């Protein structure tokens, strides 16, 4: 069985305790933060195991690569501390179960991964993708399964992820451009953390878009709009790619509003929070988030994750802020939408 590569001494000697000090939901001082993480590392009880809302952010806050969120998840599972109602977890496990209904384009060594997000089947078109399409894969067989860490269930990931890797291997792909952060994070961060080999190079679609837009620079007409960015939880697994968002906004003439809840301080869309914890937490977070966008004059809310857009999109729209996915924004910038 795959096990997490975790070093208790890294936490014990941590000079900041940032993983929990910066947490938007727990609000701990440094001493408490370090002490609790050490306890968690030792397998002892900690209130953090009950109170963590699974936003993934500590994976980014930890600059020492010790995977605090994966550890919290492992310990929760060991102790049977459920984050989600059992039925919700069961539903998601069922959703991701391979059923032989995957779809393949004309797969080449370089391929686009739609994961298991059907939106991409309709969205991925035009000049931005013409150098790769129709080389794509879609379906549960290529679903990274990382979402189950929201439900404190790494066993499903450990069981399914190697199969998914194997499915990629069988296709003979060398380079996979992931259109969802969670998939990218699965193969670049989670898999190595659990010792799962990945036989291909992973590219984040932000990096791909940035380079592709540079190639299409002559087509770009600055959009001259003010946008807020809804950063997804799973982007915490690939924080080294986060700068590409601002880089792309610069490239297409978009003003990214300097609001409170951005970059490291980003708030969850509320989707998982509502499923796991009910109305109040989710709606408090959503309200603060949208009020912040409104207060800073955002005209558009740019989404990276289709699931975030599905959850938060209708709510921002009610406040007069137009929801738009990153891919559509970029297509708009080159005159395709």
């Amino acid at each position, binding site marked *: 069985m795959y096990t997490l590569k975790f070093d208790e001494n890294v936490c014990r000697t941590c000079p900041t305790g940032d993983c929990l000090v910066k947490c938007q939901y727990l609000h701990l001082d440094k001493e408490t933060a370090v002490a609790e993480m050490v306890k968690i590392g030792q397998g002892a009880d900690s209130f953090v195991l009950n109170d963590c809302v699974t936003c993934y952010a500590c994976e980014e806050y930890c600059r020492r690569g010790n995977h605090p969120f994966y550890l919290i998840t492992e310990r929760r599972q060991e102790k049977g501390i*459920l984050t*989600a*109602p*059992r*039925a*919700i977890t*069961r*539903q998601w496990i*069922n*959703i991701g*179960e391979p*059923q032989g209904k995957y779809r393949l384009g004309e797969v080449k060594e370089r391929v686009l991964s739609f994961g298991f997000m059907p939106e991409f089947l309709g969205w991925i078109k035009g000049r931005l993708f013409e150098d790769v399409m129709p080389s794509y894969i879609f379906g549960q067989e290529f679903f990274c399964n990382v979402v189950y860490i929201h439900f404190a269930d790494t066993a499903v990931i450990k069981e399914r992820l190697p199969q998914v890797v194997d499915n990629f291997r069988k296709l003979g792909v060398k380079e996979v451009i992931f259109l969802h952060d969670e998939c990218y994070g699965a193969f670049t961060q989670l898999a190595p953390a659990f010792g799962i080999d990945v036989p291909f190079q992973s590219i984040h679609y932000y990096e791909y878009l940035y380079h592709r837009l540079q190639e299409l620079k002559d087509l770009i007409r600055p959009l001259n709009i003010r946008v807020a960015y809804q950063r997804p939880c799973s982007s915490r697994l690939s924080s080294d790619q986060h700068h590409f968002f601002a880089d792309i906004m610069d490239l297409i003439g978009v003003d990214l509003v300097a609001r409170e809840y951005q970059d490291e301080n980003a708030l969850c869309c509320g*989707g998982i929070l*509502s*499923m*796991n*914890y*009910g*109305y109040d937490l989710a*709606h408090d977070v959503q309200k603060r988030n949208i009020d912040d966008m409104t207060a800073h004059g955002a005209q558009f809310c740019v989404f990276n994750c289709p*699931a975030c857009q*599905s*959850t938060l*999109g*209708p709510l921002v729209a*009610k406040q007069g802020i137009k929801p738009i996915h990153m891919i559509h924004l970029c297509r708009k910038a080159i005159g395709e939408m």
Partner: protein
Amino acid sequence: MTDITQALAGIVGEAYVSNHPEEAYFYARDPGLMPPHAPDYVVVPKVVEEIQEIVSLANREKIPVVPMGAGLALTGLVIPLKGGIVIDMKRMTRILKVNETGRHAIVEGGTSQGLLKSYLEKHHPRLRHSIPDSPATATIAANVMIHGQGRLTQQYGFNSDMITGLEVVLASGQVSRIGSCALSPDWFSKGAPLPDLTGLFLGWFGATGIITKIGVKLYPKKKLRDVEIFLTDRADLVPDMIYELTHTEMVEDINVFAQPKPMIFKDNHHITLFFTGDTDEELEFKRKTIWHSLDRFIRNKDGGFMGVPPVMKPTLLDMPQRSVSRFADVTKGGGFEYSGPIIMVDKYPACAQKILELAEKYDLGYSGMARIIGRSHAMMYGFAFTFNRADPDMMERTRKALHEVSVFALEAGGIFWKATVDEQRMAMEKMDPVTLGLMKMIKEQMDPNGIMNPGNWEVTEV
């Protein structure tokens, strides 16, 4: 042309009478499992006077008459078990009146659910009726006749509780008005404060009279409508959850379903909640109250609200919900039937367990679905099975499964809804004998020649 055919043609016109086998073939069956039986004649009248003449003729000649709406009950209620005349109501579809402030409509006996819905949307956008999830062609009168349920059933009871009066052709050919319309030009009450005579007709499946007009209660139609789905893996907690939800007085309609396919639904019970509001604030207040009512189950991890993606909402909010019809063909081959006993909500766990047992025993595709009636006063639990009509063995297995449902439902204290002939017999055998005697008196008085949909509610033969 026979004498009877000629006589019927003389009443409704030649174009609206048939004794041709190709038409008898269709009128001999419904989409369910009951064996077919052909009528001798089919007539399609236009006005009540024609029905009076048809029934008078039938009474005189002692020929059975079977009134038919859209024929969607699935349990053989419009199959002419003893032949005779099928009276197809589909030309009597006028919406005679809508009283906006009195919130009721008067429609003819063949008016479909879809017709009234679209009429109200166009002409009275602030009004709605309790539309069931049967296809839009289902008729209002037939649905009320079988004590159907609809989108407002959780709030107001059976659709038959939501009527304001009836016009009925009796076996004698006379027309009777039931309710306030018996002595007033206004159709505002089906009975009170008079003796409520609607019970002489509702639930009798046409065995005591033919509904030719019906007053339907209309209700406020809010501008906004939304849906949430609460999941649980514990059938035993569903009644408690329903109790909390109905306590909020904020839910329009509550349906529960559990089925193994598609995979997203496997192993869980899904409580689908609909609610409405005129403003975003009203809708959000209700949403918050509804969610909070189930907080203790969320805290205990016994249930949670799933994220309903915007792309899924139009399907869920559709009225009637077409997904119900789609389920009907999951197995392919077009066979679908369910037994839907009306039963106490606390029997939900037993029903859910029973359908699992039967699906496994008979190797059938299934869906268990419940609609809450009133504030947890009862529910209709549908034991639904799909089957391939080209597979006689599968049809037989489905028949056996449904028979076991009937036995189970009766033992569990339930009452058959739109009972098949077999179920009617089982019900009458179990029924309090004095009550059965009362039914017998009614039937003998109202249909002395036994011409009204014979084979159904044969109280005189028990």
